[in-house]
């Protein structure tokens, strides 16, 4: 039976160094995420959240444990298959955008498709479509240094979503933005999950950013320690405000 999870980290541990110098970055982490779900992993600096993201993105191997993407165990994949998985299925969004400065917005977005063998013409059409979907159709020919911080991050999101990507991994995606642009970025990411069926794992120390997620998982010292319960409906907040008002 195939797994319903788009991604699953199962009993994942990661250590660096050996002997007295060994550092245990992750301890038996279990983290599943289904299609259409946005999960935030919230923790302070050094808690292991970035390590978790690089392992989820197959950029690093766990010391023990297993990562499954769309039900397929990554450990058993060849290097070539893993590279293909990264190019076709997984999109990455970083705090500092990581756009190539010598390429236009459209070229930055089309690049991963071209690297995967898509023709330049088809890749450009897909890139323009992705940029247009994020309200950047008129910025396609601009270079990163001609874009605002919010626009650069939206280009980075377009690059992460272009093609048939189904898994978005984001590291403090609104960390370099003011609250208005940060909110716009989080709206886009959540919409990509809710309406586009993508799965997103967002790591952050910021509760406001995490609050956009469907589920918030808390990480401390490499351990998943807790997670939020399914959210009650908005009406519960308004009812609580009504009750409070009644007692005043």
């Amino acid at each position, binding site marked *: 039976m195939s797994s319903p999870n788009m991604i699953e980290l199962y009993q994942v541990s990661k250590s660096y160094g050996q002997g007295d110098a060994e550092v245990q970055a992750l301890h038996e982490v279990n983290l599943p995420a289904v299609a259409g779900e946005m999960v935030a992993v*919230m923790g302070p600096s050094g808690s292991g959240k970035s390590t978790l993201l690089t392992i989820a993105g197959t950029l690093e191997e766990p010391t023990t444990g297993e990562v499954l993407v769309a039900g397929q165990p990554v450990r058993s994949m060849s290097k070539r298959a893993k590279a293909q998985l990264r190019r076709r299925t997984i999109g990455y969004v970083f705090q500092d955008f990581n756009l190539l400065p010598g390429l236009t917005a459209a070229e930055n977005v089309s690049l991963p498709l071209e690297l995967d063998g898509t023709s330049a013409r088809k890749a450009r059409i897909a890139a323009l479509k992705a940029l247009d979907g994020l309200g950047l159709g008129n910025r396609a020919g601009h270079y990163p240094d001609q874009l605002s911080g919010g626009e650069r991050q939206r280009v980075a999101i377009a690059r992460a979503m272009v093609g048939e990507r189904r898994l978005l991994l984001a590291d403090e995606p609104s960390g370099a933005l003011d609250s208005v642009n940060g909110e716009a970025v989080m709206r886009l990411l959540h919409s990509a999950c809710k309406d586009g069926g993508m799965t997103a794992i967002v790591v952050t120390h910021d*509760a406001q950013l995490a609050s956009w997620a469907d589920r918030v998982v*808390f990480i*401390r010292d490499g351990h998943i320690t807790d997670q*939020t319960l399914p*959210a009650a409906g*908005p009406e519960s*907040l*308004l009812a609580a405000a009504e009750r409070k*008002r009644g007692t005043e």
Partner: protein
Amino acid sequence: MSVRHAMLALLSEGPKYGLQLREEFEARTGEVWPLNVGQVYTTLQRLERDGMVESEGDSPEGPQKAYRITGAGRGELDSWLRTPPDLSSPPRDELVMKILVALRVPGASVTDIIQAHRRYLVQLMQQWTHIKEDSDPAELNLGLAVDAEIFRLDSVVRWLDAADGRIKRAQADDRPPGASPQAPDGNGPDKASTAAEGRGQWPLPRPPTHVRTRR
């Protein structure tokens, strides 16, 4: 929040009836702060008594009685808008008290207690964020009211994060959490804290001098 001043603000646009004031108050606060009609009329009576508003006609209290703001009311409203709320007093916050108390309860895991509160606050933030996400961006009042709640809750989460880090550092220093080995001037044990602990009281932070002199 001052219902009194919110009423003055609504009346500054022109004369209004009590029910109308209630509806407009709720609409402009994104219905985040519901108001009962009794509160509206009580507030209007007090404003009228204080010369801030005047009613039109001699009809008894009810939906047909309109109110208008006076010159004194406009002055009061302007003064209120420009006066910062008093945030100088350290709040006797229940959450702060719980964490301080937990430090001295044998067997209590302060980290777990902090996490329980953090989770609850983040869940509340998720609910407010969902309201914001589902709302029309053109609803400016709702957006502002929801942002205010999210930022307020966020500040509490940040305090919990800072407390967590501070307690861990104290534990790493092999010092009993909550102990205050140094007086604020760094010249030795804090006698006030030590005396308070001796009396079985919590070593609560003391407000700055300028705040204490106001009490």
